[in-house]
């Protein structure tokens, strides 16, 4: 099962490598990973998606918690949450295709952020499913380049991950 684990950790050199190292050392899988400082610049927020059964996820969270630099963590998928990913994509935009791509971008509520005579650069935000649906809708043959941020997430309601 796919899980989104969100981690608050000390914003120190080497902290990220310990998290990543733990995954390779123990044979866990990282599907996406995103990390940046928070409003408190002594803390970083790291979000990762991984897959595994309950037993494996329990081990992953226990081992992450053991890392000295990890202050707090939450498995967002345990409760209601919001997840977003941002994608930038270059798409062929020539002939009849040019108008078709524009329509598809509108349907998916994306934006065209750069234009040449043959290429559109599209920005799209949403869940991983939505981004994948967009790629399928445009058609892989039309896609020139894709860059995705990886998943960021936050829980719904008043629950807060902070110190």
């Amino acid at each position, binding site marked *: 099962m796919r899980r989104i684990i969100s981690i608050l*950790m*000390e914003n120190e*050199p*080497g902290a990220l*490598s*310990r998290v990543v*190292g733990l995954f390779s*050392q123990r044979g866990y899988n990282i599907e996406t990973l995103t990390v940046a400082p928070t409003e408190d610049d002594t803390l970083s927020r790291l979000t990762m998606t991984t897959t595994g059964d309950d*037993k494996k996820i*329990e*081990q992953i969270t*226990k*081992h992450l*918690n*053991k890392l*000295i*630099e*990890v*202050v707090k963590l939450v498995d967002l998928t345990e409760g209601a949450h919001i997840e977003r990913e941002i994608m930038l994509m270059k798409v062929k935009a020539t002939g009849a295709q040019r108008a078709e791509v524009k329509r598809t971008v509108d349907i998916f509520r994306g934006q065209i952020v750069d234009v040449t005579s043959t290429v559109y650069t599209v920005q799209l935000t949403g869940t991983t499913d939505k981004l994948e649906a967009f790629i399928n809708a445009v058609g892989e043959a039309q896609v020139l380049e894709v860059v995705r941020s990886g998943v960021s997430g936050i829980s719904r309601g008043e629950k807060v991950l902070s*110190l």
Partner: protein
Amino acid sequence: MEMLSGAEMVVRALQDEGVEYIFGYPGGAVLHIYDALFQQDKVNHILVRHEQAATHAADGYARSTGKPGVVLVTSGPGATNAITGIATAFMDSIPMVVLSGQVRSDWIGDDAFQETDMIGLSRPIVKHSFMVRDPSEIPEMVKKAFYIASTGRPGPVLIDIPKDHTAPNKTFPYEYPKKVKMRSYMPVSRGHSGQIRKAVDELLKAKRPVIYSGGGVVQGDASEALTAVARKLNYPVTNTLMGLGAYPGTDKQFLGMLGMHGTYEANMSMHNADVILAAGARLDDRVTNDAKKFCPGAKIIHIDIDPASISKNVTAHIPIVGPVKQVLEEMLTMIDEHDSGPDHKSVERWWQEIDGWRQVHGLRYEVNENGPMKPQQVVQALYKATNGEAFVTSDVGQHQMFAAQYYLYDRPRQWINSGGLGTMGFGLPAAMGVQFAYPDGVVACVTGEGSIQMNIQELSTCLQYGLPIKIININNQALGMVRQWQDMQYGGRHSQSYMESLPDFVKLAESYGHVGMLVEKFEDLQPAMDEAFALKDRLVFMDIYVDSTEHVYPMHIADGAMRDMWLSKTERT
């Protein structure tokens, strides 16, 4: 405030931490620190002959005292040589602080002479690591390193120190922090009382209980509490390889070691148990055999300071996360106050069953009347010569298992071996660390002709510091445990498991300035052993030739349950 250089701060912080011994080897990147060490006499530096031995010696010191062992090595090869010893300590949760030199900070990443990324190399085998980025960080970093290494589940902590941060011409205000608090590291201080109560209820209802205790009871100083609980309940106790000594080996409630080479009675009791109290043990593969077939009828109560150890291999029915000593003490109080209280009669039938197992297949081996000596006889002679009171360190292999089975350890921290990593070459340097901690103690290193040659150079260190260790070299002219597996699983094809061109160990010991003894006949064994231990101020190297065809039994049958064992070359359960 006092102004000190980085190097002086390192040494002063060790003094303020109460460090008696630091085991190390000098080199370019740590010369400033060595110079600061030279100018003081509170911290004694022990010069080993190889950095791996420095870490094992510090480890032996830590295992025998409970205090963190301290290591100082230079950058590059100094640091990489220390890796095996750090991993050994990590696997057995031993408190250790390793200071490694690093090339000057502005050269890091430039492939400078003797540069290696020690933080990266050591990452999977340390509890935590620090890189000094500014000399002013040193006092707090050292304090944190000792705090992290010795609290919670202990383990090695590394501090990597670039050479320029120890330069004598730059000084900084020094103050050693009295306490450290870290928002991201708060080891658990108490087990959950509700869980402990549930465990006590379950324990008191048990008809076929077993107490299974591990290295955590030794490291957590919980041996007294464990013994008190076991005696109050009159329940049988078995120890893991790491836990030997936590419960007195000569006590009638003791079943011996469990696991791959555990006793028949210990493994049978575990398999047939209805309640298992696992205390400071991690249910690892050398204990459980196939985890899916492990103790099918048992409710498992698992006490461990590390939540990640609980339900990792075997699901615990009643998990208790906390310091094993505090949890067992609270258990004891609850047992006293419990309505039903302990009822020794309720386990009478269980004890009859266990005694039956003991009689049928207790530890035993066949003696050759006219043939070569048996390795088990050597350990028994050692036990006799030392009245069962020696510190025994061991290397890894058959001799380790015989030393675990046939020497009965009555106190914790008496038996010192590399259980988790299984590091050949551990025994002699570990014995050095023990002997430094207990200058008047009797220290024996049980080893084999394979293992001893992995750190033989330390005989030189032993001479320099006058360490009267007794080396019991159980020489079977083969890598015995490898050969045993080859006999059992590879049709007797002894691929690379023999030892040709062995040195004359007696002459070797003598050339290092020690006493060497050769024993080839059983009738000479006990007198030679007694003579060796009578030489109180000399290191004696006893080279004892034994039967090279002997196997360690019992032995778990791979992928079976606890009860599935080979009992000899021809009998199985």
